[in-house]
């Protein structure tokens, strides 16, 4: 039997570290040779990668397509904004500490409802719930600021050790925040790697590939899907928490279902049958969108054409395509 080139291959953690080391080194050195704007863009990319990584636990490993992950991203962002407004402290660690439990609890709640269905109905249900959250954020303007959104000023990092109020505060903030996000990103990647290679992750993949067989093996399918949903939503929510201080503002746009579509797009762009696919996809999508918006007024058209072409020609995404190419080249040599 031929091994499936798109199947996630089993590797141990040290090998992940070895593969990641050169990339990580490049990312660490990056601020020394690019300008602030590029650093900011890469930070956005890393955040999108965390969101897509979380999303892909559901799509790639559990086989559930959520069309409502904007809800968890937006919830993370709005939680930070509420904390700023109501509680006051401008500390990033505090935001994360409050934000993660909130997002986790809400993901658990929504997930409990959503995993009762699979396939298309799961998609519609996640979409419906995210739209409820969106319409509440839009209409309850005395709490959420309506379509104006809520402002979030630059927080202090590392328990107030790093403050950014001076005249060069912006540049300093961008560089420091880049390393901050990078560190969290690495933690997220390692965590997710451990999750998908644990017995739990294997069980999810078994459920994805054959639900009936998995049930006969005694797996509690709905519970596994629920926990997968919870983890997935929490990762995406963390991305929202990290995104809002960088953006400085949260609006209902990040709760709208087209934003969920962008998360799906990112995962597909990189390739959702690969562990690294959504990471690459999140970063590439950020660049793609930024440059599309900068070059043409009709950037949506451009993105739409890219998406349709991608789905038609390269359904395994960038990483999937590259690994197929690598396999093909190796076969040609021997």
């Amino acid at each position, binding site marked *: 039997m031929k091994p499936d080139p798109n199947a996630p291959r089993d590797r141990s953690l040290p090998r992940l570290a070895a593969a990641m080391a050169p990339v990580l080194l490049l990312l660490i050195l990056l601020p020394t040779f690019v300008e602030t704007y590029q650093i900011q863009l890469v930070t956005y990319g890393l955040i999108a990668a965390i969101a897509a990584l979380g999303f892909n636990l559901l799509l790639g490993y559990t086989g559930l397509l959520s069309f409502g992950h904007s809800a968890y991203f937006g919830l993370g962002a709005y939680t930070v904004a509420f904390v700023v407004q109501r509680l006051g402290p401008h500390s990033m660690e505090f935001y994360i500490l409050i934000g993660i439990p909130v997002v986790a609890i809400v993901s658990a709640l929504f997930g409990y409802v959503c995993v009762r*269905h699979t396939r298309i109905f799961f998609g519609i249900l996640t979409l419906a719930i995210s739209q409820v959250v969106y319409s509440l954020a839009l209409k309850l303007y005395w709490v959420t600021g309506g379509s104006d959104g809520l402002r979030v000023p630059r927080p202090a990092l590392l328990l107030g050790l790093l403050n950014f109020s001076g005249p060069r505060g912006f540049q300093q903030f961008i560089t420091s925040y880049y390393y901050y996000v990078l560190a969290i990103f690495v933690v997220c990647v390692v965590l997710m790697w451990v999750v998908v290679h644990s017995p739990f992750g294997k069980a999810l993949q078994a459920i994805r590939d054959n639900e009936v067989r998995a049930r006969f093996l005694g797996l509690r399918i709905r519970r596994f899907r629920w926990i997968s949903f919870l983890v997935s939503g929490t990762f995406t929510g963390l991305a929202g928490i990290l995104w809002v201080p960088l953006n400085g503002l949260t609006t209902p746009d990040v709760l709208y279902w087209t934003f969920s579509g962008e998360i799906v797009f990112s995962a597909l762009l990189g390739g959702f049958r690969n562990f690294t696919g959504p990471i690459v996809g999140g970063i590439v999508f950020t660049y793609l969108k930024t440059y599309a918006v900068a070059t043409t007024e009709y950037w949506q058209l451009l993105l739409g054409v890219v998406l349709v072409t991608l789905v038609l020609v390269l359904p395994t995404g960038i990483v999937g395509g590259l690994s197929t190419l690598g396999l093909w080249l190796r076969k040609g040599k021997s």
Partner: protein
Amino acid sequence: MAFLTIQILNSLLYASVLFLIAAGLSLIFGVMRIINLAHGSLYAVGAYVTAWLVGRGIALGLPPGWLFLLLPLGALSVALIGIVIEPLLLRPFYRRAEEYQLLVTFGLIQILEDSIRFIWGGTPLSADALMDALPIIHIGGLLYPAYNLVVIGIGVVAALALWVAIYHTKFGVMLRATSQDRRMASALGLNVGLVYVMAFGIGCFMAGLGGAIVVPTQAAVLGMGIDALVIAFVVVVIGGLGSLKGALVGALVVSFVRTAGIQFFPELELAVLYLIAALVLLVRPTGLFGTA
């Protein structure tokens, strides 16, 4: 009393348009098993084309009565777009996973929405000449445009026509046979590809007609397609995907709840609609009349 009558008429008006959109969405799902996310954008295209045609018609000095003939033209143009889209973009995806079908139609939304902006620009396009062509009637001391009654009439006629076409014609039998078992229908000599194109074309025609009849009452604006899609989802989830009766009942439920919502709880109107949809999915996953 008159106030209540007008609210009921408004609900029926909204229900007619919603039914046209949702029935098309449902028909396409029933036959081809794909959710066409771009359906709302096709409805918007219908509205824009009709408004543009009416504008041209007035510029050419067509008498107001003739302008009504432009409504089916707007719908037909959307059907034509559908007939092109189905074999070109959707056909390669029937054998692939649902994710890809959703993604390709999501890409289609972005293409259609920006094409609308490219062709007609960002300013709203109105066709209220049609509304002014008909008199304003008195209902218990309140004024009501007769055109709205025409829209309700078109909705009723469309529902009847679709019902006859699906359940009482030979084409309807072919459609239902393909929907139930595509391979068996093909083995019995049906041209399944043709049935698909026809079904998709009819679905698009309905969406286009919805856009065409709505545009004289409210101008065509950017983003109307996405709004319509989001509400049409609620309709088909409540009624049941793939069911004509479901689309009708769903459209009525949504429009009455929405009209009441705008009166009594405007902030929560959309949230309530989605909560109803989520509840229906929990209690009856296939919707009130769904079979899928």
